[in-house]
């Protein structure tokens, strides 16, 4: 599951028990994390691993695959000048995952954006409402089954 080259990576040693799989590609490290462990992993990486910044949080829709949504976290450690990607897959039926706003406040808007454009809910988010689209908008545009042009018939 974890390639030999990554065995000595400090972040791997820190959260090894929660990593489903890891890869090293294009100079970037990615961990696959089970959705129910995400907050715990993030907290440990921030407080013990030095990843004090959440650089970015977004989602990828793998429709029609299941689990459908990948929630992608890009962590950044200024101290070690390192970046780390975490990925969690959530099901397409009532997609939801725990919010990491208690770990990094930056996640507030990032998660609202994902909620707005993908329709993934975040548990324990302080103000989970649409951020870019109007409040009465129907549908979630970045889903793959949402048309690019025109309206649905």
């Amino acid at each position: 599951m974890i390639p030999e080259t990554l065995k000595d990576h400090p972040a791997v040693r820190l959260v090894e028990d929660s990593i489903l799989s890891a890869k090293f590609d294009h100079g970037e490290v990615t961990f696959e994390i089970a959705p129910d462990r995400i907050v715990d992993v993030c907290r440990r990486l921030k407080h013990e691993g030095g990843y004090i910044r959440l650089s970015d949080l977004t989602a990828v829709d793998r429709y029609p695959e299941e689990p459908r949504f990948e929630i992608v976290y890009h962590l950044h450690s200024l101290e070690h000048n390192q970046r780390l990607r975490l990925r969690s897959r959530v099901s397409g039926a009532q997609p939801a995952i725990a919010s990491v706003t208690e770990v990094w406040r930056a996640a507030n808007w990032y998660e609202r954006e994902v909620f707005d454009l993908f329709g993934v809910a975040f548990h324990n988010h302080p103000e989970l409402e649409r951020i870019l689209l109007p409040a009465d908008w129907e549908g979630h545009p970045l889903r793959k089954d949402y048309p690019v042009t025109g309206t649905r018939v």
Partner: protein
Amino acid sequence: MASSFTLTEPEIATPQTATSTRRMTLNMGPQHPSTHGVLRLELELEGEVIRSAKPDIGYLHTGIEKEFEVKTYQQAVTLTDRIDYLAPLSNNLCYSLAVEKLLGLEIPPMAQWTRVMLVELTRLNSHLVWLGTHALDIGAMSMFLYCMREREDILRIFEMYSGQRMMTSYIRIGGLALAPPRGWHNRIKSFIDGFPSKVDEYEELLTNNRIWIGRTKGVGFISVEDMLDLGVTGPMLRAAGVNWDARKQAPYSSYEKFDFTVPTRTENDVYARYLVRVEEMRQSAKIVKQALDGMPEGAFQADAPGLMLPEREKMKTQMESLIYHFKIVTEGFRVPEGEVYQVIESPRGELGYYVVSDGTAKPYRVHIHGPSFGNLQSIPTLAKGSMISDVIASMGSMDFVLGDTDR
């Protein structure tokens, strides 16, 4: 006589105390001149003191990320221009770097150096608009005119190579769109030689100006911990003593070959952010000069048939080039499966492009992490407890672009 005074005094005093304890909600924007675009702030006021501020964004949302998914990789470069309209070339570069990483393309040195020169000119362009409008908000009208004067020169330089002033799409996947035109380098040289004296001129007007200092010094403080936690990057972070700049810490496009310093301050206020950006302008001018002096000879595009459009002459004489041209224009090129998160230092801070490829000719997903998005998120923390007039100064010091926030 005395009794008449005591009668009138309470009449004036009573309504004053009544208003000062009442809270008022004020909408600032979306058409407020100091919001630079369409941002709405919901301010909760107690007199002139802000008790809470809630930014409302999304007025400029155009669905660019969705649009990426139906364009071929090379076509999508034109979309990147339209995200941050003050730094189109930085967005071109970040996107191109991400796709080039997926393709494993080697970019010739001449293209890399020209890219550096262009993004530094973009930084100057963006900082000039920032300085002009920031000063205008605070009341220094003439600064705006001086800054626009120099910005015009930069836009003319952009126009000379691409025919466009802003949305140039000149940086493409694999290098540059065209070879730079004859005389272009001389034009940049004459501009950049005179530029440091223009910065002196700005500083002459502002740096020791009592009104400027009064409006900016000690205003707009936000702790480093809050900034890191809220996703603030760029000059704001550097004005608080955090020396983090992607050009130094994670060099791209041969930045490691250039000699420049990253200015930092520790005061962490609007004035410090001003000083940091002004010094950044001087450093950018220095980088452009180095790029001009040491500009390597060679090709402006990677040697990658099947990915880059063939030369016009070859297309007319070689069958293979003609086929490549047809295929690239009609189908685009395939990018190997994978994902990349590329970060560069845009004028506003950390700009990130997350590109996911599924092996086809169109990106599966492109996510843009604009620096303004993270920076704006700090407004509630930054504005709380400050005066309403200081919010104008602090917002100016953030230098956000709403196109970059809303995408």
